[in-house]
């Protein structure tokens, strides 16, 4: 039974592999460029995946586009430019720093500053709260109350 199921699984694994794309590269640098690019470009159909991860048809088309352009000897910059010309900066997982993307890049820093300022303000307020000054009149009263407590 165990052997039978192993054979069955081995047979089925062939079907699972059938969907994998086969790409041939002239040199390791080209392959590296392909892998880098496909993992830096966003699939626009399923927006939280790169085109390397996504199974969407558009992602497959864009992978083909990247591969063909590399075969034509285009540089990584050329291909990134080709994609942003058509799909905008959104297609890049690592968008360039410019006016439009400023909030995206500076947002975390701004939030960190707000947090630091908030922490600073709260800790300072606590400190002032602990050093309460007591007037002489009040101290007198406290003393008399304490003495009364001793007597009982």
């Amino acid at each position: 039974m165990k052997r039978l199921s192993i054979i069955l699984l081995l047979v089925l694994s062939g079907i699972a592999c059938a969907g994998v794309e086969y790409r041939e590269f002239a040199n390791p640098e080209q392959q590296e460029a392909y892998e880098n690019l496909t993992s830096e470009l966003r699939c626009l159909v399923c927006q939280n995946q790169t085109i390397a991860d996504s199974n969407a048809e558009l992602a497959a088309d864009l992978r083909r586009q990247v591969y063909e352009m590399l075969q034509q000897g285009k540089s990584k910059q050329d291909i990134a430019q080709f994609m942003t010309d058509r799909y905008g900066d959104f297609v890049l997982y690592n968008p360039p720093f410019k006016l439009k993307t400023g909030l995206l890049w500076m947002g975390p820093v701004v939030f960190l500053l707000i947090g630091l300022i908030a922490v600073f303000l709260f800790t300072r307020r606590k400190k002032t709260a602990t050093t309460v000054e007591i007037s002489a009149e009040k101290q007198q009263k406290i003393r008399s109350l304490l003495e009364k407590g001793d007597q009982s």
Partner: protein
Amino acid sequence: MLKYILPLLLFIVLAVFLALGLNLHPNEIPSPLINKSAPAFSAPKLQAPSEKLSQTDLKGKVWLFNVWASWCASCRSEHPVLNQLAQQKAAIIVGLNYKDEPEAAKGWLEQLGNPYDVSIMDQDGRIGIDWGVYGVPETFVVDKQGVIRYKHTGPVTSEDVQQTFLPLIAKLQAEN
């Protein structure tokens, strides 16, 4: 006093951001092609594959470029709207039959009516990439100079036609 105002202010800020977030459409990515020349293409016509259509054939005319496919479910809901728009003859409607089987596409047009003055075939999706197509249906409005002036992602509704497309087409028809 600050003790009460501060949480209230925080709540208001949060509420405003959440309300804005509800009305955002993260699926609609602004196209960098707006106000740029329409990407060049030359593709066989769906109804007459031996003939080709290119963007230069449409120079001097206001035209809509509607990306559609017979496998696309929301194209079906958009189709009656396009049929109505076609009857008004406000502009030429060019269809881009995107990654489709020609026979299935022709069958779809026979069954549901054909709003397109002409449809061209993009079986491997290359014209789609040049136009930045990422979700079907999409509709572009191109002016007489061959410049893309507007892009609509997703199915066009009759409100969109009345409020956006017809006024824009009228404006572009008046231009030289």
